[in-house]
């Protein structure tokens, strides 16, 4: 032992005793789990008077108890700081799991990106419904004036306008025997809204009737456009016996040999 006097509550070097201020006292050892006695308990010894040298141990005063030596009979052991921190961290993590899951779900389900609420402006070239019609062309000018009056064609309404999806179609046939060889078809919504015109000529290539028909076709489609009328008329005559296409003033003219015809429609 060192030379200095032990302090109250100090343990002996072997840890089995503690200093109560006047003498070394035994540190209570943890009670072992009671084991069943292998034999019947011995008879109780005869009562003995307590030895004056070894009085029955009494628990020391609380302020004299060494750390960790509190008797179990005093209640549950108080948690240390490490235990408290572990419990707090565990609780934090336990709370974070459902919280994080709920937060992620909420963010995924409830937060929506924002975008434009209106579509972008349409370019000038964007197709417009008004482009469906041949500009300046009327049913009256084609059917009544050109075909019926000038060329004695007969016209009748057809069931369906297949080429352009227009509301109405008028089929006009040449007079007499020409009815089997030449015909003109007009698809339109109303008199001033013509979508499509086609003229069929079933004569062999080189026939003057077809040349005259295609030339007149070009003229009538551009009748209200004097600056383009001659160009269209010439193109029809020149390309009568070919497969060709052109666009004049926003109108597409197309000639085909099989079947032999010319057709006009808005360019798009």
């Amino acid at each position, binding site marked *: 032992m060192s030379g200095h006097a032990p302090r109250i509550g100090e343990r002996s070097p072997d840890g089995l005793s503690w200093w109560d201020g006047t003498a070394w006292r035994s540190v209570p050892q943890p009670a072992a789990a009671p084991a069943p006695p292998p034999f019947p308990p011995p008879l109780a010894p005869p009562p003995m008077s307590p030895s004056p040298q070894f009085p029955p141990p009494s628990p020391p005063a609380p302020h004299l108890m060494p750390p960790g030596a509190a008797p179990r009979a005093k209640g549950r052991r108080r948690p240390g700081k490490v235990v408290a921190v572990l419990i707090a961290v565990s*609780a934090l993590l336990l709370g974070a799991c459902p919280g994080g899951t709920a937060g992620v779900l909420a963010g995924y389900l409830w937060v929506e990106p*924002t975008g434009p609420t209106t579509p972008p402006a349409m370019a000038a070239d964007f197709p417009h419904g008004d482009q469906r019609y041949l500009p300046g062309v009327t049913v009256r000018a084609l059917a009544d004036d050109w075909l019926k009056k000038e060329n004695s064609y007969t016209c009748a309404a057809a069931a369906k306008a297949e080429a352009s999806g227009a509301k109405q179609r008028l089929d006009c046939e040449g007079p007499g025997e020409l009815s089997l060889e030449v015909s003109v078809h007009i698809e339109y919504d109303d008199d001033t809204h013509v979508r499509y015109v086609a003229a069929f000529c079933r004569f062999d290539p080189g026939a003057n009737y077809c040349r005259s028909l295609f030339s007149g076709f070009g003229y009538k489609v551009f009748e209200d456009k004097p600056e383009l009328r001659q160009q269209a008329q010439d193109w029809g005559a020149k390309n009568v016996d070919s497969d060709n296409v052109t666009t004049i003033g926003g109108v597409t003219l197309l000639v085909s040999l099989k079947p032999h015809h010319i057709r006009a429609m808005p*360019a798009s």
Partner: protein
Amino acid sequence: MTTEPTPPVGAGTAPDRRGGLSWRRVLLVGAVAAVVGLAGAGIAGYLVIGGQEKARTSANCGTLQRCIPSLKAATVVDALTQRGHECAEQEQGARVCTLAIGETKYQALLAVWDGLIADMNVSVWSPEGREVTPGRLAYLFWFAALPYGDDPTLVGQIEGWITEKVEKLESAQATIGGYRYEITVEEARNLEIRVMAELR
């Protein structure tokens, strides 16, 4: 008459300074920590995932698809109708808008979910189409740009990509700004583009 002195509050329950905290206090700290963890992780998860969702260019709609955010299909249909296109509602709320100019057929099919556009199939068909006119390109550009009408950079990318493929007469696929684009080019006769949001 003397009164019995009242014991000081807490007498006999004072924490043992040498034995650490009481269980009650530790449990209280644990409960507070759990609440803090719950709220903190919840807020953090919401902010992180919510931020990611906010930055996306497509919105949740349905179970296995995404939609163009904010832009109602009805708004698109109205714009087309005002331009003279004919629109009709089909099964399951899909909208189809068509316009025939001569023999050229413009058609846009919009798959709609809860008012938003989930998928677009846009085509221009012309039996005698020998060239791709500016009108046909403008039609494709407009639909392709619907998801990002307010982003000139992405709009430029999309238009450049479409122009390149049409000039090369080449069918292709690409992902631009979180949307999948599939373009089909059959010479100049048939141009078709499909636009749908990427799931991830």
